[in-house]
């Protein structure tokens, strides 16, 4: 059964090929059937494989499928092979379930858009590439998937290719992530050169044998891999592309820029954790970047007006939590948060998509209001997503994963109090900004009237995702521990080493477990007071000159764009302008100018007078003969 693992990957690619070739010639309903069907079948097959994996796990909780030898040039012996273990199983299941639901949703929400078949073709290509990325057993294959998802992200952000803003955003996303990709590639070169293999596990084993902890090589390699991860996962300082990427259609934002692709960086670090554990300095850096990102993006999310940009910044912030968890060695906590985040964030995006579509493509939350009665489905699902995002204690899945991360940050030997404080402050911020949107959009005075009815294909994915956003925590942590032995920790323990924990006194532990719920409930109350009960406070603050500057500062994403324009874009534009007047260019242009003037002189001889032509022929013959005779 595991031998047919390749089918999981082949189905989305087949769907892509079918739609790319025949997409323009078949009916819209057929396009949707192929587009949703390919991924949904793949998800069903992955579920079968997953069930089998749990019932009778393969030896060592891992299965490797070698397909063919890809680049057999020693020392670069790249083999096209896939590896199924706890980590990649969780990844493919989450990716495929979320992708199928989002595709089902988009079969309805994209129905009025131009390029319906193109959309489904790209989405299937994306799913295929993402599966290659997470299943790859070889770093070169992983890199293939890594670049493939980058390409699909570019294509789908620029889906409305007639809109200049979308094109700009897609180019920005591609170029900014490219910075990280180059670092990642150099990291791969270093691995091949020094370890002689690209097999993930071979490389990790060799690295731990060859290099002592803290030696320069693993530091350099993991720093380069970390840079790649930062670019892909939109962490400080390369986070600038993700808010702009919201120019793409909402299902794209839900699938690529919230649930799956942006997690590739987290996956890469988790996959290469052996290398990162050899360099404690880089682990510390990962944690600090995560903490800085979750605070910065949380503050930025608090000021946004565009509902999708709020969600984009909250995605950046939540991935910051995952980086923080990775940095303190709590790998399974990071993967658990990825899983829960994939469900509630795609739920939030899809619910926001319903809101946006029913408000006539309006993105500004301050122009919405009181949508609670008119859009009950969107309201309840958005509320559930927000509860999970702000980690409402006990009832939401987000609580379990975030609490696990925050507790690990305190108790891990690699964590410390400052990081813990950042994480708690971030939890408070998360609750404030997520409920700010809920209160402004769904409560208060009704401003926009919406008429659009949502169909089953919209409501079903919302319902299923809400179920996971609430229940994933119970299902994975509590219930199976009693029934089948913990599903989650069992299969991940075979992949990751347990985090090194300090001794935490039981009293402190209880206190810690009480502070996180307090932070999230406190945040919700603050949001209720500031945005529903007494909006005057916020208005007065915004009138204040210092408040105005602060508001612009956070609204424009902490002025990272301005900084980069000043540091890189403008000097580059100036340099290219200067190089235009290069002396070499003068000589190159002289050739062109002389050819042009010669052409003008010769075209003067074309008078149209036949007798002059005859004279010219005669003269030419005489000259040629004279040359022949004289020489």
């Amino acid at each position, binding site marked *: 059964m595991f031998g047919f693992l390749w089918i999981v990957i082949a189905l989305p690619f087949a769907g892509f090929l079918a739609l790319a070739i025949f997409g323009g010639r078949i009916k819209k309903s057929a396009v949707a059937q192929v587009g949703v069907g390919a991924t949904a079948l793949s998800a069903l097959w992955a579920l079968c494989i997953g069930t089998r994996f749990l019932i009778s796990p393969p030896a060592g909780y891992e299965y490797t499928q070698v397909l063919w030898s890809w680049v057999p040039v020693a020392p670069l012996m790249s083999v096209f092979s896939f590896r199924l273990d706890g980590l990649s199983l969780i990844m493919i299941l989450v990716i495929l379930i979320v992708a199928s639901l989002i595709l089902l949703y988009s079969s309805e929400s994209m129905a009025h858009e131009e390029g319906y078949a193109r959309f489904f073709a790209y989405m299937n290509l994306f799913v295929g590439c993402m599966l290659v990325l997470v299943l790859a057993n070889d770093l070169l294959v992983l890199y293939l998937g890594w670049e493939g998802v980058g390409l699909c992200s570019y294509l789908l952000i620029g889906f409305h290719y007639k809109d200049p803003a979308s094109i700009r955003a897609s180019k920005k996303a591609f170029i900014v992530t490219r910075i990280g990709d180059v670092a990642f590639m150099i990291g791969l070169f270093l691995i091949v050169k020094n370890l002689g293999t690209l097999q993930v596990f071979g490389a990790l084993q060799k690295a731990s044998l060859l290099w002592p902890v803290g030696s320069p090589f693993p530091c350099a390699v993991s720093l380069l891999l970390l840079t790649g991860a930062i670019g892909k996962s939109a962490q400080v300082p390369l986070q600038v592309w993700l808010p702009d990427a919201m120019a793409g259609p909402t299902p794209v934002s839900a699938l690529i820029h919230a649930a799956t692709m942006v997690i590739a960086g987290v996956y890469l670090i988790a996959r290469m954790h052996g290398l990162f554990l050899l360099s404690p300095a880089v682990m510390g850096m990962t944690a600090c970047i995560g903490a800085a990102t979750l605070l910065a993006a949380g503050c930025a999310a608090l000021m946004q007006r565009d509902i999708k940009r709020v969600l984009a910044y909250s995605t950046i912030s939540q991935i910051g939590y995952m980086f923080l968890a990775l940095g303190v060695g709590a790998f399974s906590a990071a993967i658990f948060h990825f899983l829960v985040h994939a469900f509630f964030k795609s739920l939030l995006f899809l619910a926001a998509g319903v809101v946006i579509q029913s408000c006539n493509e309006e993105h500004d939350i301050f122009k919405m209001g009181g949508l609670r009665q008119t859009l009950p489905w969107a309201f309840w699902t958005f509320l559930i997503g927000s509860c999970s995002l702000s980690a409402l204690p006990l009832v939401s899945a987000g609580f379990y994963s975030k609490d696990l991360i925050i507790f690990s940050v305190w108790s891990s030997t690699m964590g410390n109090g400052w990081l813990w404080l950042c994480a708690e402050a971030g939890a408070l911020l998360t609750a404030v900004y997520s409920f700010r949107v809920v209160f402004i959009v769904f409560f208060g005075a009704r401003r926009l009237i919406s008429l659009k009815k949502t169909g089953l294909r919209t409501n079903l994915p919302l319902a299923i995702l809400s179920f996971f956003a609430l229940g994933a925590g119970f299902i994975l942590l509590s219930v199976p521990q009693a029934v089948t032995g913990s599903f989650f920790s069992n299969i991940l323990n075979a992949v990751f080493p347990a985090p090194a924990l300090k001794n935490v006194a039981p009293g402190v532990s209880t206190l810690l477990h009480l502070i996180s719920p307090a932070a999230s409930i406190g945040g919700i109350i603050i949001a209720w007071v500031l945005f529903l009960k007494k909006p005057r406070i916020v208005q007065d603050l915004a009138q204040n000159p210092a408040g105005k500057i602060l508001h612009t500062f956070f609204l424009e994403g902490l002025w990272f764009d301005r900084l980069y324009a000043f540091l890189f874009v403008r000097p580059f534009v100036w340099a290219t302008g200067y190089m235009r007047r290069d002396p070499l260019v003068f000589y190159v242009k002289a050739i062109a100018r002389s050819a042009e003037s010669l052409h003008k002189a010769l075209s003067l001889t*074309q*008078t*149209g*007078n*036949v*007798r002059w032509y*005859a*004279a010219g022929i*005669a003269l030419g013959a005489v000259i040629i003969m004279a040359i022949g005779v004289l020489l």
Partner: protein
Amino acid sequence: MTNIPMDAALVCASLLFVTGLAGVLARRNIIVVLLSIEIMLNAAGLAFIAAGSRWARPDGQIMFLFILAAAAAEGAVGLALVLRQNHSAKTIDIDAAGSMKG
């Protein structure tokens, strides 16, 4: 029959050729231009015949037959062009062909 020296024949051919060339360049009537071209062709033919008789070989005369065929073809095409031009421009002035310049 006395042998005509080849130099004399070549001089005669050159004179004929120059006469024809002068006619092509100087005259504006297309019919006369075509006549002049025939004269130039015959000058070339005369040079071939003179050379053939100098080395007592038949090649020169065979070449002249080819020139005759070419001249006939050229005359046919040329006269057809004259007819077309007369039809469209109502003149057989060769300079009127300059109006076709793009």
